[in-house]
């Protein structure tokens, strides 16, 4: 039963707003040079409008002939993507100006990527999933290489492009196989058909494996993780920030929609082994290699790999506990990661230079706010209370313990310990080392500082009073499973 067109349109109003805004920005860039300096703010305005639309408008469920499902979950993820986008845009303007690279395409591409992620979040058809994925990926290829005079930025772009396209091809081929096995591109049908079987059909197994491998690339979990450190390090910091949270969120939701209801653990014993293995390997390898990094951005990339390992635990556990833990983890991760990258942007001289831990030495008393926000976010990433990172880990491990995965919780906490070692390394460089002779000359920037501060405050507030977040996540999951 197709829904009326106005319902369809209203359901995707945020995406529409962002798309229109992107076009508008493109026009302004081309024809109204006077407004160029306000592009970032205009973009933020559009994001705010989209967020308002998301909050104000109803979530009708299936729309667009059943290819999109705008439900509470989609709304939740949309808001989270918009929040990340907002923070990215906020810090991007001054950041680009500082690096002499302000061009309007940046904002346009970022908006398009966000639209792609939002499409993914509500996609319930293989086609929309794929479209969303590509709409997210293609602008990001460009954004990675945005500093086109920078060797490392271009290299990051190349790597993300080649491996990303490669992974997309896998997703696509996997989708073809799933389509072939179930005679449908509708996720609900696919899930129903697979779940009805006693075991996994080889075609389904291979198809699922290819899709999951492709999504694993987006999530940057082991073994499809290797691109992440290079790309994070090479990309402009706001892009890195965006890249480290938005695609991961979108991919996790797709994974969640796939895995939920299929009860893959029943169909294939290998499913648990595969996901748990990826989770454990990601946590361990990510944290381990992060230990010996000298570049903070690269270190955060490895830490991101580890964090997605934790999130995978929640995916594996599944059920209301696990699914809501995924959402909590996403939100927490967004805040602390955005905050960390923003603070890092404040604490680094130029973006095309490495962001060495050594360069942060003694800045704790020099650039107090930036250092404090970075410290807050790092402690949070390490899972220390009273920050949101603890809430997230608490939710994930609680889910694991409640569903018999105590060993995964133990591995997880052990990895938290490992991770503390390298986060501490940054923190002591900030506060416990003297300012070097030739300290980097840092330019203050209000928007970036504001981004970092907002993120850090979010980290603290959600950590001290996690109730709202936990309740919201639980409510979302309840509403979609009802």
């Amino acid at each position, binding site marked *: 039963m197709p829904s009326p067109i106005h319902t369809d349109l209203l359901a995707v109003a945020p995406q529409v707003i962002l798309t229109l805004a992107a076009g508008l920005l493109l026009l302004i860039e081309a024809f109204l040079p006077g407004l160029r300096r306000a592009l970032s703010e205009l973009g933020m305005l559009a994001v705010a409008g989209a967020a308002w639309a998301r909050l104000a408008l109803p979530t009708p469920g299936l729309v667009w002939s059943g290819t999109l499902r705008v439900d509470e979950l989609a709304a939740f993820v949309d808001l989270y993507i918009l929040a990340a986008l907002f923070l990215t845009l906020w810090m991007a303007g001054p950041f680009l100006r500082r690096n002499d690279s302000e061009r309007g395409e940046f904002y346009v591409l970022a908006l398009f990527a966000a639209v792609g992620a939002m499409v993914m979040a509500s996609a319930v058809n293989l086609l929309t999933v794929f479209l969303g994925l590509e709409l997210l990926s293609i602008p990001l290829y460009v954004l990675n290489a945005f500093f086109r005079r920078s060797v490392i930025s271009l290299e990051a772009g190349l790597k993300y492009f080649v491996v990303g396209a490669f992974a997309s091809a896998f997703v696509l081929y996997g989708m073809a196989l799933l389509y072939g096995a179930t005679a449908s591109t509708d996720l609900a049908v696919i899930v129903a058909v697979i779940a009805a079987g006693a075991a996994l059909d080889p075609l389904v197994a291979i198809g699922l494996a290819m899709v999951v491998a492709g999504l694993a690339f987006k999530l940057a979990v082991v073994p499809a993780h290797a691109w992440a450190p290079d790309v994070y390090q090479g990309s402009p910091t706001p892009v890195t920030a965006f890249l480290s949270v938005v695609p991961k969120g979108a991919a996790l939701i797709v994974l969640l929609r796939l895995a939920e209801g299929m009860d893959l653990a029943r169909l294939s014993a290998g499913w648990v082994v595969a996901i748990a293995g990826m989770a454990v390997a990601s946590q361990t390898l990510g944290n381990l290699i992060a230990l010996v990094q000298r570049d903070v951005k690269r270190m955060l990339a490895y830490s991101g790999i580890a964090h997605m390992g934790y999130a995978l635990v929640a995916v594996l556990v599944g059920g209301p506990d696990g699914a809501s833990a995924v959402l909590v983890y996403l939100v927490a991760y967004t805040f602390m990661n955005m905050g960390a990258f923003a603070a890092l942007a404040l604490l680094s001289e130029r973006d095309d230079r490495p962001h060495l831990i050594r360069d942060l030495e003694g800045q704790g008393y020099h650039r107090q706010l930036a250092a404090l926000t970075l410290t807050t976010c790092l402690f949070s990433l390490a899972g220390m*209370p009273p920050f949101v990172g603890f809430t997230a880990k608490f939710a994930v491990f609680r889910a694991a313990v409640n569903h018999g995965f105590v060993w995964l*919780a*133990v591995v997880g906490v052990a990895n*938290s*310990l490992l991770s503390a*070692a390298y986060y501490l390394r940054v923190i002591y460089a900030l*506060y*416990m080392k003297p300012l070097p002779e030739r300290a980097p000359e840092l330019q203050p920037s209000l928007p970036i500082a504001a981004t970092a501060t907002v993120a850090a405050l979010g980290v603290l507030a959600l950590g001290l*009073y996690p109730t709202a977040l936990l*309740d919201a996540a639980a409510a979302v999951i309840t509403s979609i499973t009802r």
Partner: protein
Amino acid sequence: MVDDHLLSIVLIAPAAFAVVLLPIPRRWRKVHRVLTIIASSLMFAFSLRLWTAFDADEPGFQLAERLPWIPQLGISYHIAVDGISILLVLLTTLLLPVVVLAAWRLNIEHIKSLHISLLLLTTGMIGTFVAVDLFLFYVVWEITLIPMYFIIGVWGGPRRIYAAVKFFIFTMVGSVLMLVAVLYLAWFHHLQTGAWSYDYTELLTTAPLLPVTGGLLAPGLLVFAAFGLAFAIKVPVFPFHTWLPDAHVEAPTTGSVILAGVLLKMGAYGFLRFNRGLLPAAWEACVPLLTALAVVGIIYGALVAMVQADVKKLVAYSSVSHMGFVMLGLAAGGQAATQGAILQMVNHGLSTGGLFLLVGMLYQRRHTRMIADFGGLAHEMPVFTGVFLIVTLSSIGLPGLNGFVGEFLILAGSWSRAPVAVALAGLGIILGAVYMLWTVQRVFWGPLANEANRLLPDLTVRELFVMLPLLVLIVWIGVHPGTFLSPTEAAVRLLLGR
């Protein structure tokens, strides 16, 4: 109004005050100092009010406050004190103004940050003692790590970073597993009752049901081990103690005093409250192990202390030894021994805290802590020598001073259950006298060995005021320990009776 939220005020006020300090420019060092000393004294006053409001005959939790925090998961902001925790809360609030005053004249960089760290740390420490909800307990337990990490790492000695990281990681090794144990307990509670709760008072009904038979992997034993490891590292119990000497040596006086005075007590308190309270069957099974570790700690700590060249390191190892007594008292588990162990926690806070303060004063004058750099100070600083001697005597358990009462109760209470352990622990007392008196001799007696020590100024009036509360309590507890023993009586009886 104030009385209704007395405990919350005592808990939150330090953190709130830290926030108040934030906007004050850091150049106004004096303002920070004055404000902090006023605030910490006020907090102490509030905690005295807590003391008077406390009813010693009531065995359970009192002055409780409970607000829903994450109601969906059965997590609440539930704080309360009982006879076991009230003393430790008071010890914490007492030591805060003492260390602030002790750091008064020190030419410390970033004094504002130091005070903020101290205040946040205080909230964490008090929280640990008053949290009834296990989630809340875990949160505040972990929170203490952060300010302490900074205190050691920023204001510490030459190897401060190593020490700070070691402190952080060591402590975290234990506490992360504790998180899993807490989650497991909550899950088990849900399994048994169908309700989610992290509340100590509610978990008390289900946690003891955890099976402890069926080999080493019995859930009860594993949960016990997870809690135990966290606390054993904090106490520290041999062989998890090696973070302590490093932390103490590198930490500034302020940090060492708080570390020895309060932080170590968190471990012993945890053992009593959670391992003993929640898992009595597992505790029974582990008593031989705990006793053995306690005794080894006593003798080992004393032996190693004996050959230290750095006074601070010596006192640090002596802490290992003294906390071994506390563990012995807890392990023995009788009413008297347990009460003695609680009192001994306070005693150790006073005497070892006092020693660290004194060593700090010496360091401030001479910028060295090596015993070999001193000798014959008694003539130059007679009052200092006297105070040091009194604290030393308290530390080695001279009757009439506080240390004796604790040791006496612990050993007398343990005698019937583990006479061999008591006798061995007694060796620790002898060794304690050996290393402490030997230190006193090498630092204070003999001819003036080093010309640099000539005319070292004696204790100033401010420093005397720093030491005075400790000295008063050292004698008070030694002569009339009833003041501090009677509040613990009913609570310990309740805890052990379960």
